[in-house]
């Protein structure tokens, strides 16, 4: 396990470099938007990775509530943290692209609003974890994660009622995309997923060690009291 980490880190770095090269030099230029379209290779993979991490968070939270396993809780925490980072990347790169293409930074469109609400829900999840320092934090956080997941379809329908301006999803949304662009997009997604996995892994180890240290300190202070 310990040896796998640097190997994966090197592989991820290579993959990210290759994906960067592909996105900037190899991918064909978009006819109407020009170079600014290349932000798409960062925006979309970040979004997919963020949504993937939020799903991991939900699954880990449910597992925690059923099994009460501390590992599931650590996974939930880590995936929410890294997911919020990727979601922030999505929310920052989106307006940078939208300004020259749509002429506006932000619009209250379906996918934008949904992403923003998801971001808000997960930030409140992290705030809850930060502010609650009892041993019950995992339980409360897991319950909040489930509430957040229940909220997503409702948010979707509430915004679906308005006309949507965002480009249709490139996969399974009826939109068309140049196969070379799709190729670059998928490489970027793979690179981003590896990167997210790597960060989660490192963060998980830190979290696990931190818990071990806290436990040892608690035991030590108990020991001091009994003596």
């Amino acid at each position: 396990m310990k040896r796998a980490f640097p190997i994966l880190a090197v592989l991820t770095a290579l993959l990210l470099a290759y994906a960067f090269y592909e996105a900037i030099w190899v991918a064909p230029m978009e006819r109407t938007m020009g170079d600014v379209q290349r932000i798409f290779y960062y925006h979309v993979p970040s979004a997919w990775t963020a949504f993937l991490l939020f799903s991991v968070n939900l699954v880990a939270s449910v597992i925690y509530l059923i099994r009460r396993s501390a590992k599931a809780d650590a996974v939930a925490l880590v995936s929410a943290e890294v997911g919020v980072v990727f979601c922030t990347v999505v929310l920052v790169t989106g307006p940078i692209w939208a300004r020259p293409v749509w002429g506006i930074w932000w619009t209250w469109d379906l996918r934008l609003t949904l992403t923003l609400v998801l971001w808000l829900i997960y930030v409140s999840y992290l705030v809850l974890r930060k502010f609650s320092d009892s041993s019950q934090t995992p339980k409360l956080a897991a319950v909040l994660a489930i509430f957040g997941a229940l909220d997503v379809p409702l948010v979707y329908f509430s915004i679906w009622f308005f006309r949507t301006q965002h480009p249709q999803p490139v996969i399974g949304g009826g939109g068309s995309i140049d196969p070379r662009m799709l190729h670059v997009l998928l490489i970027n997604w793979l690179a981003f997923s590896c990167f997210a996995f790597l960060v989660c892994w490192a963060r998980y180890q830190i979290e696990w060690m931190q818990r071990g240290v806290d436990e040892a300190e608690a035991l030590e202070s108990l020991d001091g009291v009994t003596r």
Partner: protein
Amino acid sequence: MSSLRSITLATLTKDIRLEWRSRDAINSMLFFSLLVVVIFSFSFDPNAEESREIAGGLIWVAFLFAAVVALNQTWARELRNQVLDAYRVSPAPANALFLAKALGNFILVSVLEAVMAPLFMIFYNLRALGPAWQLIPVAILGTWALVVNGTFFAAMSLRTRSREIMLPLLLFPISIPAVQSMVEATRIILAGDGSARFWIILLLTYDVVFTTACLALFETILQAE
């Protein structure tokens, strides 16, 4: 089932009696939402046509803020003298306590709305152009949507530091679809453009989904200590 109902009723009447004698929550909520309405009317100076468009948003935001004032006090009373601990070890079902608290808050916020809505209509010269009776289901479903999650999150934030600020931080993101539905439904009814049916159904769905979730998970939250 009968024990659930009798315990719910007992807790609810106890809370209402306490509130009736002190009138702490209702007075602070009424004054608070009055202040919000007045401040809004200084911030915007709308004519009748514009105010129809924005009144739905203003009124529900005022009620949302005022509801948080009441929701924050929901459980504070039970913390004193370890009432909540006593409840935890008693065989009474946890959901009875939750339902009583949620219903109590629902009654409080409904009273607030009944008093404030006419005042709002006067201040903003409002007259519904659509079917005004539809405002009643919107108000009932919307209030329940705010209150059911609010009561639940208030119980959750009991275990956190600075719990007064924690409640809105948890409640507002989750309430976004409910608030949007209430505001849109109210706007459509006041301006009389189209049917508010979609929003009322969405509110109903929100209520059903989150009432179920709250009842299913409240036991976990109550026992968390």
